[in-house]
């Protein structure tokens, strides 16, 4: 079943397995089984189409050895019309499979593999199920630590979709005095023509990072990666060297914490990376929708982020942040100023948020300027020991104008609003109602109402049932965003974990 790409890698894995088996067999002689199943059904009444998705993850461990497999069943009534999870055409079968040996200082895995070097500037192969992102590789991963030294290697080709690249990478780290860590990283990617499978060129990334504490009051981190792309075709001029840089300083000053981040990317549009955004990730729906994170331009972007958090007392916490980014050559500025107050009144909690964001986004041949002013508030009010009400109100005023036509004289103005209320019954049930309305002339609808019911069945099953109309738009999770299509109908989700 497992397609082992590199024979030497398989041989190495076998040798490592044998070594660990000799060292550890008998210590963990009980077999552990882990399984999780996610079943989702949704029916869109607007387009009269439905989808059934089911994902089953199973892994079995014995001692240092683990084998895992992921089954996926995706059955859309018409994949061209309705596919909220972005799985594409109908799929039934094994999505991922892997075998892993995990010793105390040696780890090896074949099959579907993941890895992150540094802070993700040179390489981050990862999965985020919230936004259905997965750039998993089919290949080999290994790591060894010996005292203060560490080494990680990875190799393979993309596991999902048509093959479009092969990748090899390595990272070496050394723990230094004072708690600092220094690392060197290198990644070699050969992009492939998806039609012919032939190599198109060579994409090389090489860099270093250093991070650690300066006493009890400051944490530091810096990483710099150079990118060089050499095409194979003679008529392709290639690109001058590009780079990616990231730095972080955090100060701990009693009740005050200050976080600062700096980023600089130039000619750095490459697969397999996921560096820090140096922009705020929000919990607010409207702020997430208008976040600059989805519009990051790795071909030319630099800027910084600063956030101060101050605990006034045990009941009050203040957050203020400011971020600014722009393109060195194209000038696409984006700024965001954000403030938050979190206040506890006994068992009640109130959070008030306000943000002002401005950015220019290239849309076709036009540069569109957006200004958004957002106010948001959440109150969590216990009604009894086990019953509570959670209410959130968000409102966002938007001004939109075309810089080419100087339409700022008559900007497009509209307001988006959301009110949501959730009644929680601990420990296993909640009912939610979300009403959203907008006077945006760009929307076909002007109101959306969604009701949902969540129940935990036993300690290992969770059922969610929702019905109504969802607006869609940008959905972000941990700094990764995707566009979700509007939806009208019913959704059922059943999650089982063992």
């Amino acid at each position: 079943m497992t397609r082992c790409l590199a024979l030497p890698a398989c041989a190495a894995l076998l040798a490592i397995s044998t070594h660990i088996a000799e060292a550890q067999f008998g210590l963990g002689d009980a077999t552990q089984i882990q399984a999780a199943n996610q079943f989702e059904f949704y029916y869109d009444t607007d387009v009269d189409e439905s989808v059934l998705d089911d994902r089953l993850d199973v892994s079995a461990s014995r001692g240092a050895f683990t084998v895992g497999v992921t089954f996926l069943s995706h059955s859309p009534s018409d994949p061209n019309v309705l596919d909220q999870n972005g799985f594409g055409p109908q799929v039934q079968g094994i999505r991922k499979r892997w075998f892993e040996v995990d010793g105390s200082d040696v780890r090896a895995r074949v099959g579907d593999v993941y890895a992150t070097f540094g802070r993700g500037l040179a390489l981050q192969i990862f999965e985020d199920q919230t936004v259905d992102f997965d750039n998993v590789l089919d290949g080999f991963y290994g790591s060894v630590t010996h005292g203060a030294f560490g080494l990680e290697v990875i190799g393979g080709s993309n596991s999902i979709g048509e093959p479009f690249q092969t990748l090899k990478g390595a990272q070496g780290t050394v723990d230094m005095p004072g708690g600092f860590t220094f690392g060197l990283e290198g990644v070699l990617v050969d992009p492939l023509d998806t039609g012919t499978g032939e190599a198109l060129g060579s994409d090389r990334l090489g860099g270093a990072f250093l991070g650690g504490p300066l006493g009890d009051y400051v944490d530091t981190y810096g990483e710099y990666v150079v990118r060089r792309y050499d095409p194979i075709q003679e008529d392709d001029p290639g690109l001058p060297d590009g780079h990616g840089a990231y730095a972080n300083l955090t100060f701990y000053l009693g009740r005050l914490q200050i976080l600062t981040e700096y980023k600089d990317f130039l000619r750095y549009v490459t697969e397999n990376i996921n560096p820090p955004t140096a922009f705020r990730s929000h919990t607010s729906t409207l702020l997430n929708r208008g976040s600059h994170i989805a519009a990051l331009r790795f071909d030319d972007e630099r800027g910084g982020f600063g956030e101060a958090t101050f605990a006034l007392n045990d009941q009050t916490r203040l957050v203020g942040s400011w971020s600014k980014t722009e393109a060195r050559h194209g000038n696409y500025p984006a700024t965001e100023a954000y403030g938050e107050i979190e206040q506890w009144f006994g068992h009640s909690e109130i959070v008030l948020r306000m943000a002002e964001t401005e950015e220019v986004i290239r849309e076709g041949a036009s540069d569109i300027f957006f200004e958004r002013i957002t106010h948001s508030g959440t109150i969590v009010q216990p009604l009894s020991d086990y019953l509570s009400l959670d209410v959130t109100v968000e409102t966002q005023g938007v001004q939109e104008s075309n810089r080419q036509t100087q339409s700022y004289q008559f900007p497009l103005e509209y307001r988006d609003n959301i009110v949501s209320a959730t009644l929680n019954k601990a420990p296993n049930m909640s009912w939610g109602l979300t009403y959203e309305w907008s006077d945006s002339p760009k929307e076909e609808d002007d109101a959306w109402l969604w009701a949902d019911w969540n129940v935990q069945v036993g300690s290992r099953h969770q059922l969610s049932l929702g019905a109504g109309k969802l607006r869609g738009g940008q959905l972000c999770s941990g700094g990764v965003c995707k566009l979700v299509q509007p939806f009208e109908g019913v959704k059922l989700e059943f999650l089982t974990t063992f």
Partner: protein
Amino acid sequence: MSFPALSRRSRLLFGLAAGIVLTLGATHVRPALAEGDESASMAPDFTAEGLDGKTYTLSELLKEGPVYLDFWTTWCKPCQQALPKLDELHTKYEKAGFTLLTVASDDQKTIAKVKPHVKSRGWKFPVILDSKRELGNKYSVRAYPTSYLISQDGKVVSMHQGYRPGDEKVLEEELISLLPADAVKAASESEGGSH
């Protein structure tokens, strides 16, 4: 893997059947293995370094008493509602042998925010960084927060996803049943005295 052209109804029925089979398959994995195998619901052991620089090993912590393992992120709203409540439980029952061990699952994009996030709130419980989601994968974490209450013999007593205000009271009841009665009494008296 693509299937040959089937009618819309056939595809839907096939998908439904596959979903049911897989769901039932998952549902039956544990009971089938649990028969005669007491280890089926054992919590996977691990060793990890905390934000405070200390090394935490689950099996070592369990020698002191039950452990509540909580997976969270800085951008998860219910996580932020739950953690102050868990911190109160940690403070109250720490001397009784209870350990609240939390796992910050922020990835490389937001990992820099974890430490100031924890320090600004003055949380005293240990926090492990799991930016590569290795520990999360070991515990099949699919959403945040996800929590496991692990008894002193290493068994998963309960697993919980999400947070609803009041969950901490249910957890406290479960926790009390796992702690020695005299230690619980001392913790309650100590809390009463501190007020």
